[in-house]
Protein backbone atom coordinates (compact mmCIF):
# COMPACT_ATOMS: atom_id res chain seq x y z
CA UNK A 1 0.00 0.00 0.00
CA UNK A 2 1.18 3.49 -0.77
CA UNK A 3 -0.26 6.90 0.01
CA UNK A 4 -0.91 9.02 -3.06
CA UNK A 5 -1.27 12.71 -2.27
CA UNK A 6 -2.82 14.88 -4.93
CA UNK A 7 -0.92 18.10 -4.37
CA UNK A 8 2.45 19.61 -5.01
CA UNK A 9 5.18 18.26 -2.76
CA UNK A 10 5.80 21.70 -1.31
CA UNK A 11 2.16 22.31 -0.46
CA UNK A 12 1.96 23.55 3.11
CA UNK A 13 0.27 20.38 4.41
CA UNK A 14 1.70 17.89 1.95
CA UNK A 15 5.35 18.55 2.80
CA UNK A 16 5.10 17.97 6.56
CA UNK A 17 2.64 15.10 6.31
CA UNK A 18 4.60 13.31 3.60
CA UNK A 19 7.67 13.60 5.78
CA UNK A 20 5.79 12.28 8.81
CA UNK A 21 4.36 9.35 6.86
CA UNK A 22 7.79 8.44 5.55
CA UNK A 23 9.24 8.64 9.04
CA UNK A 24 6.64 6.08 10.05
CA UNK A 25 7.67 3.82 7.18
CA UNK A 26 4.97 4.55 4.62
CA UNK A 27 5.56 4.86 0.90
CA UNK A 28 4.26 8.25 -0.21
CA UNK A 29 4.04 9.74 -3.70
CA UNK A 30 2.64 13.06 -4.88
CA UNK A 31 0.85 14.03 -8.04
CA UNK A 32 0.45 17.78 -8.37
CA UNK A 33 -2.41 17.66 -10.78
CA UNK A 34 -2.98 17.40 -14.49
CA UNK A 35 -0.75 19.17 -16.96
CA UNK A 36 1.19 18.76 -20.15
CA UNK A 37 4.58 18.00 -18.57
CA UNK A 38 5.53 14.32 -18.03
CA UNK A 39 5.13 14.35 -14.25
CA UNK A 40 1.61 15.71 -14.64
CA UNK A 41 0.43 13.50 -17.46
CA UNK A 42 -2.15 10.84 -16.66
CA UNK A 43 -3.64 7.78 -18.30
CA UNK A 44 -6.61 5.53 -17.72
CA UNK A 45 -6.56 2.30 -19.68
CA UNK A 46 -9.46 -0.11 -20.04
CA UNK A 47 -8.91 -3.69 -21.13
CA UNK A 48 -9.96 -7.26 -20.40
CA UNK A 49 -7.34 -7.28 -17.67
CA UNK A 50 -9.04 -4.46 -15.87
CA UNK A 51 -8.67 -0.75 -15.43
CA UNK A 52 -5.34 0.90 -14.85
CA UNK A 53 -4.64 4.49 -13.91
CA UNK A 54 -1.31 6.23 -13.91
CA UNK A 55 -0.70 9.66 -12.46
CA UNK A 56 2.63 10.92 -13.72
CA UNK A 57 5.13 8.14 -12.97
CA UNK A 58 2.85 6.51 -10.39
CA UNK A 59 0.41 3.67 -10.96
CA UNK A 60 -2.62 3.64 -8.72
CA UNK A 61 -2.75 0.14 -7.24
CA UNK A 62 -5.34 -1.79 -5.24
CA UNK A 63 -5.09 -0.96 -1.58
CA UNK A 64 -3.60 2.49 -2.10
CA UNK A 65 -4.85 5.45 -0.15
CA UNK A 66 -5.45 8.56 -2.23
CA UNK A 67 -5.65 11.84 -0.36
CA UNK A 68 -7.09 14.58 -2.58
CA UNK A 69 -5.36 17.41 -0.84
CA UNK A 70 -5.05 20.25 -3.33
CA UNK A 71 -4.45 19.31 -6.95
CA UNK A 72 -3.53 22.15 -9.25
CA UNK A 73 -5.96 23.22 -11.88
CA UNK A 74 -5.44 21.41 -15.20
CA UNK A 75 -2.89 23.13 -17.40
CA UNK A 76 -2.81 22.81 -21.14
CA UNK A 77 0.38 23.17 -23.12
CA UNK A 78 1.49 26.80 -23.42
CA UNK A 79 2.55 26.23 -27.03
CA UNK A 80 -0.81 25.06 -28.25
CA UNK A 81 -2.15 27.23 -31.04
CA UNK A 82 -4.28 30.11 -29.81
CA UNK A 83 -6.90 28.81 -32.20
CA UNK A 84 -7.03 25.55 -30.19
CA UNK A 85 -6.48 26.83 -26.65
CA UNK A 86 -10.12 26.81 -25.60
CA UNK A 87 -10.53 23.31 -26.92
CA UNK A 88 -7.35 22.17 -25.22
CA UNK A 89 -8.32 23.77 -21.91
CA UNK A 90 -11.73 22.15 -21.98
CA UNK A 91 -10.35 18.72 -22.87
CA UNK A 92 -7.88 18.98 -20.01
CA UNK A 93 -10.69 19.92 -17.68
CA UNK A 94 -12.89 17.03 -18.78
CA UNK A 95 -10.04 14.56 -18.50
CA UNK A 96 -9.22 15.86 -15.05
CA UNK A 97 -12.78 15.13 -14.02
CA UNK A 98 -12.53 11.71 -15.60
CA UNK A 99 -9.52 10.93 -13.43
CA UNK A 100 -10.92 12.34 -10.24
CA UNK A 101 -14.27 10.59 -10.47
CA UNK A 102 -12.68 7.41 -11.74
CA UNK A 103 -10.59 7.16 -8.58
CA UNK A 104 -13.77 6.43 -6.66
CA UNK A 105 -14.43 3.35 -8.71
CA UNK A 106 -11.01 1.80 -8.18
CA UNK A 107 -10.19 -0.53 -5.27
CA UNK A 108 -8.49 2.26 -3.37
CA UNK A 109 -9.49 4.43 -0.44
CA UNK A 110 -10.07 8.06 -1.42
CA UNK A 111 -10.15 10.89 1.14
CA UNK A 112 -12.42 12.68 0.35
CA UNK A 113 -14.20 11.18 -2.60
CA UNK A 114 -14.26 13.84 -5.28
CA UNK A 115 -18.01 13.59 -5.79
CA UNK A 116 -18.59 14.15 -2.08
CA UNK A 117 -16.20 17.09 -2.03
CA UNK A 118 -17.81 18.71 -5.01
CA UNK A 119 -21.25 18.22 -3.54
CA UNK A 120 -20.64 19.43 -0.01
CA UNK A 121 -18.51 22.32 -1.21
CA UNK A 122 -21.84 24.05 -1.80
CA UNK A 123 -22.82 26.30 1.07
CA UNK A 124 -26.53 25.77 0.44
CA UNK A 125 -26.22 22.00 0.78
CA UNK A 126 -24.14 22.44 3.91
CA UNK A 127 -26.77 24.54 5.68
CA UNK A 128 -29.59 22.23 4.70
CA UNK A 129 -27.79 19.05 5.74
CA UNK A 130 -26.63 20.62 8.99
CA UNK A 131 -30.18 21.55 9.89
CA UNK A 132 -31.51 18.15 8.86
CA UNK A 133 -28.87 16.48 11.00
CA UNK A 134 -30.03 18.31 14.09
CA UNK A 135 -27.41 21.05 14.25
CA UNK A 136 -28.33 24.62 15.05
CA UNK A 137 -28.05 26.76 11.95
CA UNK A 138 -28.52 30.55 11.81
CA UNK A 139 -31.32 31.82 9.59
CA UNK A 140 -29.76 32.58 6.24
CA UNK A 141 -30.50 33.88 2.78
CA UNK A 142 -28.47 33.32 -0.36
CA UNK A 143 -29.53 35.70 -3.08
CA UNK A 144 -28.81 38.25 -5.76
CA UNK A 145 -32.37 39.56 -5.68
CA UNK A 146 -32.59 43.06 -4.18
CA UNK A 147 -36.20 42.48 -3.18
CA UNK A 148 -35.39 39.26 -1.37
CA UNK A 149 -32.41 40.78 0.41
CA UNK A 150 -34.28 43.89 1.48
CA UNK A 151 -37.19 41.85 2.77
CA UNK A 152 -34.80 39.61 4.67
CA UNK A 153 -33.08 42.61 6.22
CA UNK A 154 -36.40 44.25 7.10
CA UNK A 155 -37.74 41.18 8.84
CA UNK A 156 -34.61 40.08 10.61
CA UNK A 157 -34.80 40.55 14.36
CA UNK A 158 -31.05 40.49 14.80
CA UNK A 159 -27.88 41.97 13.38
CA UNK A 160 -26.80 40.45 10.09
CA UNK A 161 -23.58 39.38 8.52
CA UNK A 162 -22.69 39.02 4.88
CA UNK A 163 -20.17 36.63 3.42
CA UNK A 164 -18.99 35.43 0.05
CA UNK A 165 -19.40 31.94 -1.34
CA UNK A 166 -15.67 31.69 -1.90
CA UNK A 167 -12.68 33.75 -0.74
CA UNK A 168 -11.31 36.41 -3.03
CA UNK A 169 -8.32 38.71 -2.91
CA UNK A 170 -7.99 42.16 -4.45
CA UNK A 171 -4.54 43.44 -5.25
CA UNK A 172 -4.39 47.19 -5.00
CA UNK A 173 -2.81 49.40 -7.64
CA UNK A 174 0.47 49.66 -5.73
CA UNK A 175 0.93 45.92 -6.21
CA UNK A 176 1.86 45.34 -2.59
CA UNK A 177 -1.41 45.92 -0.74
CA UNK A 178 -4.27 43.49 -0.65
CA UNK A 179 -7.82 43.19 0.60
CA UNK A 180 -9.46 39.83 1.22
CA UNK A 181 -13.07 38.78 1.59
CA UNK A 182 -14.11 38.28 5.15
CA UNK A 183 -17.38 37.81 6.95
CA UNK A 184 -18.58 41.30 7.85
CA UNK A 185 -21.53 42.93 9.52
CA UNK A 186 -24.09 44.16 7.03
CA UNK A 187 -24.80 47.81 7.79
CA UNK A 188 -27.82 49.68 6.38
CA UNK A 189 -25.65 52.14 4.48
CA UNK A 190 -24.29 49.27 2.44
CA UNK A 191 -27.75 48.77 0.94
CA UNK A 192 -28.06 52.23 -0.50
CA UNK A 193 -28.91 50.96 -3.97
CA UNK A 194 -30.65 47.87 -5.26
CA UNK A 195 -28.20 47.49 -8.06
CA UNK A 196 -25.25 46.77 -5.79
CA UNK A 197 -27.03 43.65 -4.58
CA UNK A 198 -27.01 42.33 -8.12
CA UNK A 199 -23.30 42.90 -8.67
CA UNK A 200 -22.59 39.63 -6.88
CA UNK A 201 -24.74 37.07 -5.09
CA UNK A 202 -23.91 36.71 -1.42
CA UNK A 203 -24.82 34.88 1.75
CA UNK A 204 -26.78 36.91 4.27
CA UNK A 205 -27.10 35.45 7.72
CA UNK A 206 -28.26 36.31 11.20
CA UNK A 207 -25.25 37.11 13.31
CA UNK A 208 -24.53 34.47 15.94
CA UNK A 209 -23.81 36.23 19.24
CA UNK A 210 -20.59 34.32 19.72
CA UNK A 211 -18.72 33.95 22.94
CA UNK A 212 -16.05 32.12 21.00
CA UNK A 213 -15.51 30.07 17.86
CA UNK A 214 -14.82 26.37 17.45
CA UNK A 215 -12.87 24.62 14.74
CA UNK A 216 -13.72 20.94 14.57
CA UNK A 217 -11.83 18.35 12.54
CA UNK A 218 -13.76 15.31 11.32
CA UNK A 219 -11.65 12.18 10.93
CA UNK A 220 -13.94 9.36 9.84
CA UNK A 221 -15.91 8.36 12.90
CA UNK A 222 -14.12 10.74 15.23
CA UNK A 223 -14.32 14.47 15.77
CA UNK A 224 -11.83 16.71 17.52
CA UNK A 225 -12.73 20.25 18.52
CA UNK A 226 -10.71 23.27 19.49
CA UNK A 227 -12.00 26.52 20.92
CA UNK A 228 -10.75 29.71 19.31
CA UNK A 229 -10.72 32.74 21.56
CA UNK A 230 -10.07 35.95 19.73
CA UNK A 231 -9.29 38.82 22.11
CA UNK A 232 -10.24 41.31 19.40
CA UNK A 233 -13.71 39.78 19.16
CA UNK A 234 -13.60 39.87 15.37
CA UNK A 235 -16.53 38.36 13.51
CA UNK A 236 -14.11 36.38 11.38
CA UNK A 237 -11.13 34.94 13.28
CA UNK A 238 -9.09 33.77 10.31
CA UNK A 239 -6.85 36.71 9.74
CA UNK A 240 -6.22 37.20 13.44
CA UNK A 241 -5.35 33.53 13.79
CA UNK A 242 -2.83 34.00 11.03
CA UNK A 243 -1.08 36.54 13.21
CA UNK A 244 -1.10 34.31 16.27
CA UNK A 245 -3.74 36.39 18.03
CA UNK A 246 -6.19 33.56 18.55
CA UNK A 247 -5.92 31.24 21.54
CA UNK A 248 -6.50 27.62 20.57
CA UNK A 249 -7.56 25.12 23.24
CA UNK A 250 -8.99 21.60 23.06
CA UNK A 251 -12.68 21.50 23.94
CA UNK A 252 -15.05 18.58 24.39
CA UNK A 253 -17.65 18.27 21.66
CA UNK A 254 -21.19 18.14 23.05
CA UNK A 255 -22.63 14.67 22.37
CA UNK A 256 -25.58 16.01 20.39
CA UNK A 257 -23.23 18.04 18.17
CA UNK A 258 -20.97 15.05 17.57
CA UNK A 259 -24.00 12.95 16.70
CA UNK A 260 -25.15 15.63 14.24
CA UNK A 261 -21.73 15.91 12.60
CA UNK A 262 -21.39 12.17 12.15
CA UNK A 263 -24.86 12.11 10.59
CA UNK A 264 -23.78 15.01 8.37
CA UNK A 265 -20.70 13.05 7.31
CA UNK A 266 -22.76 10.00 6.41
CA UNK A 267 -25.25 12.12 4.49
CA UNK A 268 -22.65 14.08 2.55
CA UNK A 269 -20.18 11.26 2.06
CA UNK A 270 -17.17 13.14 3.42
CA UNK A 271 -14.78 11.38 5.78
CA UNK A 272 -12.66 14.40 6.52
CA UNK A 273 -13.55 18.04 6.99
CA UNK A 274 -12.97 21.18 9.01
CA UNK A 275 -16.14 22.52 10.59
CA UNK A 276 -16.67 26.01 11.94
CA UNK A 277 -19.04 26.74 14.81
CA UNK A 278 -19.92 29.80 16.80
CA UNK A 279 -20.68 29.16 20.47
CA UNK A 280 -23.09 31.55 22.19
CA UNK A 281 -23.37 32.58 25.84
CA UNK A 282 -25.72 29.67 26.51
CA UNK A 283 -23.14 27.22 25.23
CA UNK A 284 -25.06 26.41 22.08
CA UNK A 285 -22.96 25.41 19.09
CA UNK A 286 -24.10 27.06 15.85
CA UNK A 287 -23.01 25.46 12.61
CA UNK A 288 -21.45 28.03 10.28
CA UNK A 289 -19.80 26.03 7.54
CA UNK A 290 -17.57 23.12 6.65
CA UNK A 291 -14.51 23.06 4.47
CA UNK A 292 -14.04 19.54 3.17
CA UNK A 293 -10.41 20.31 2.39
CA UNK A 294 -9.68 22.58 5.32
CA UNK A 295 -6.26 22.91 6.84
CA UNK A 296 -5.44 21.76 10.34
CA UNK A 297 -1.73 21.99 11.04
CA UNK A 298 -2.16 25.55 12.25
CA UNK A 299 -4.09 24.08 15.18
CA UNK A 300 -1.06 22.03 16.22
CA UNK A 301 1.14 25.04 15.70
CA UNK A 302 -0.98 27.07 18.08
CA UNK A 303 -1.37 24.32 20.64
CA UNK A 304 1.04 21.40 20.71
CA UNK A 305 -1.28 19.33 22.90
CA UNK A 306 -3.80 18.75 20.12
CA UNK A 307 -1.76 16.33 17.97
CA UNK A 308 -4.09 16.66 15.01
CA UNK A 309 -1.21 15.82 12.66
CA UNK A 310 -0.76 12.36 14.14
CA UNK A 311 -4.49 11.77 14.38
CA UNK A 312 -5.00 12.71 10.75
CA UNK A 313 -2.24 10.37 9.63
CA UNK A 314 -3.56 7.56 11.79
CA UNK A 315 -6.97 8.11 10.25
CA UNK A 316 -5.57 8.28 6.72
CA UNK A 317 -3.63 5.03 6.99
CA UNK A 318 -6.20 3.06 8.99
CA UNK A 319 -8.81 0.89 7.35
CA UNK A 320 -11.89 2.83 6.31
CA UNK A 321 -14.33 3.19 9.17
CA UNK A 322 -11.74 3.11 11.93
CA UNK A 323 -13.03 4.07 15.35
CA UNK A 324 -11.79 6.95 17.46
CA UNK A 325 -10.07 4.42 19.71
CA UNK A 326 -8.32 2.88 16.73
CA UNK A 327 -7.15 6.28 15.50
CA UNK A 328 -5.80 7.21 18.91
CA UNK A 329 -4.16 3.82 19.34
CA UNK A 330 -2.34 4.26 16.03
CA UNK A 331 -1.37 7.91 16.30
CA UNK A 332 1.78 7.27 18.33
CA UNK A 333 3.54 5.76 15.31
CA UNK A 334 3.73 9.20 13.68
CA UNK A 335 6.00 12.12 14.52
CA UNK A 336 4.48 15.29 15.87
CA UNK A 337 4.27 18.74 14.37
CA UNK A 338 7.06 19.78 16.72
CA UNK A 339 9.18 16.90 15.41
CA UNK A 340 8.70 18.30 11.93
CA UNK A 341 9.65 21.80 13.01
CA UNK A 342 12.79 20.39 14.61
CA UNK A 343 13.73 18.37 11.54
CA UNK A 344 15.97 19.52 8.70
CA UNK A 345 13.17 18.52 6.33
CA UNK A 346 11.28 21.69 7.14
CA UNK A 347 14.03 23.87 5.70
CA UNK A 348 14.34 21.85 2.53
CA UNK A 349 10.87 22.62 1.23
CA UNK A 350 10.91 25.13 -1.62
CA UNK A 351 8.47 28.00 -1.39
CA UNK A 352 5.07 27.62 -2.98
CA UNK A 353 4.68 29.53 -6.20
CA UNK A 354 1.71 31.83 -6.53
CA UNK A 355 -0.53 31.11 -9.47
CA UNK A 356 -0.64 34.24 -11.64
CA UNK A 357 -3.84 33.04 -13.28
CA UNK A 358 -5.61 32.23 -10.03
CA UNK A 359 -9.28 33.00 -10.32
CA UNK A 360 -9.46 34.08 -6.70
CA UNK A 361 -7.39 37.20 -7.21
CA UNK A 362 -8.26 40.47 -8.94
CA UNK A 363 -6.09 43.45 -9.69
CA UNK A 364 -7.65 46.81 -9.02
CA UNK A 365 -6.92 49.49 -11.61
Amino acid at each position, binding site marked *: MKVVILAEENDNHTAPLKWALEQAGYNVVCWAGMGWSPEKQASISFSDDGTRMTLGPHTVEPGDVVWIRRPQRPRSHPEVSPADKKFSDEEYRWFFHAVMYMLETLPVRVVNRYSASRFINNKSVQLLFARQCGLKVPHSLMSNSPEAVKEYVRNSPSRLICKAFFPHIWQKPDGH*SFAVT*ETFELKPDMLS*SDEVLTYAPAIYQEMVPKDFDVRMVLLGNAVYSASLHNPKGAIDWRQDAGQGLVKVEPIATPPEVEKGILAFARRSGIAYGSFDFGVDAQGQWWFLEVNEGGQFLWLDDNNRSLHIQEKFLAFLTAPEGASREEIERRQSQFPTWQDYLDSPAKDQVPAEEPDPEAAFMSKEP
Partner: protein
Amino acid sequence: MKNDNRVLSRKGARELTPREAEGVTGAVRTLTLCSIGPKGPDGDVSLGEC
Protein backbone atom coordinates in the same frame (compact mmCIF):
# COMPACT_ATOMS: atom_id res chain seq x y z
CA MET B 1 -11.48 54.17 -9.49
CA LYS B 2 -15.23 54.48 -9.27
CA ASN B 3 -16.35 52.97 -5.96
CA ASP B 4 -20.12 53.11 -6.10
CA ASN B 5 -20.27 50.03 -8.30
CA ARG B 6 -18.17 47.73 -6.14
CA VAL B 7 -19.55 44.45 -4.85
CA LEU B 8 -20.65 44.26 -1.22
CA SER B 9 -17.92 41.80 -0.36
CA ARG B 10 -15.28 44.27 -1.51
CA LYS B 11 -16.81 46.93 0.69
CA GLY B 12 -16.59 44.54 3.61
CA ALA B 13 -13.17 43.18 2.70
CA ARG B 14 -10.33 43.33 5.13
CA GLU B 15 -7.13 45.14 4.33
CA LEU B 16 -4.24 42.78 4.89
CA THR B 17 -1.25 43.62 7.00
CA PRO B 18 2.14 43.39 5.29
CA ARG B 19 2.75 40.08 7.05
CA GLU B 20 -0.52 38.65 5.83
CA ALA B 21 0.22 39.95 2.38
CA GLU B 22 3.32 37.75 2.29
CA GLY B 23 0.98 34.77 2.19
CA VAL B 24 -0.76 36.15 -0.84
CA THR B 25 2.45 36.55 -2.73
CA GLY B 26 3.59 33.07 -1.88
CA ALA B 27 6.21 33.76 0.73
CA VAL B 28 4.51 31.84 3.48
CA ARG B 29 4.84 28.10 3.23
CA THR B 30 4.20 25.59 5.89
CA LEU B 31 1.91 27.59 8.09
CA THR B 32 -0.19 29.52 5.67
CA LEU B 33 -3.24 29.53 7.84
CA CYS B 34 -5.78 30.36 5.21
CA SER B 35 -3.88 29.96 2.00
CA ILE B 36 -6.14 29.73 -0.96
CA GLY B 37 -5.35 27.09 -3.47
CA PRO B 38 -5.19 27.39 -7.19
CA LYS B 39 -8.66 27.51 -8.57
CA GLY B 40 -9.94 27.06 -12.02
CA PRO B 41 -12.26 29.63 -13.50
CA ASP B 42 -15.23 27.40 -12.91
CA GLY B 43 -14.29 26.42 -9.40
CA ASP B 44 -13.48 22.88 -10.40
CA VAL B 45 -10.16 22.30 -8.79
CA SER B 46 -10.11 24.16 -5.59
CA LEU B 47 -11.35 22.10 -2.74
CA GLY B 48 -11.11 25.05 -0.42
CA GLU B 49 -8.98 26.01 2.51
CA CYS B 50 -9.33 27.09 6.09
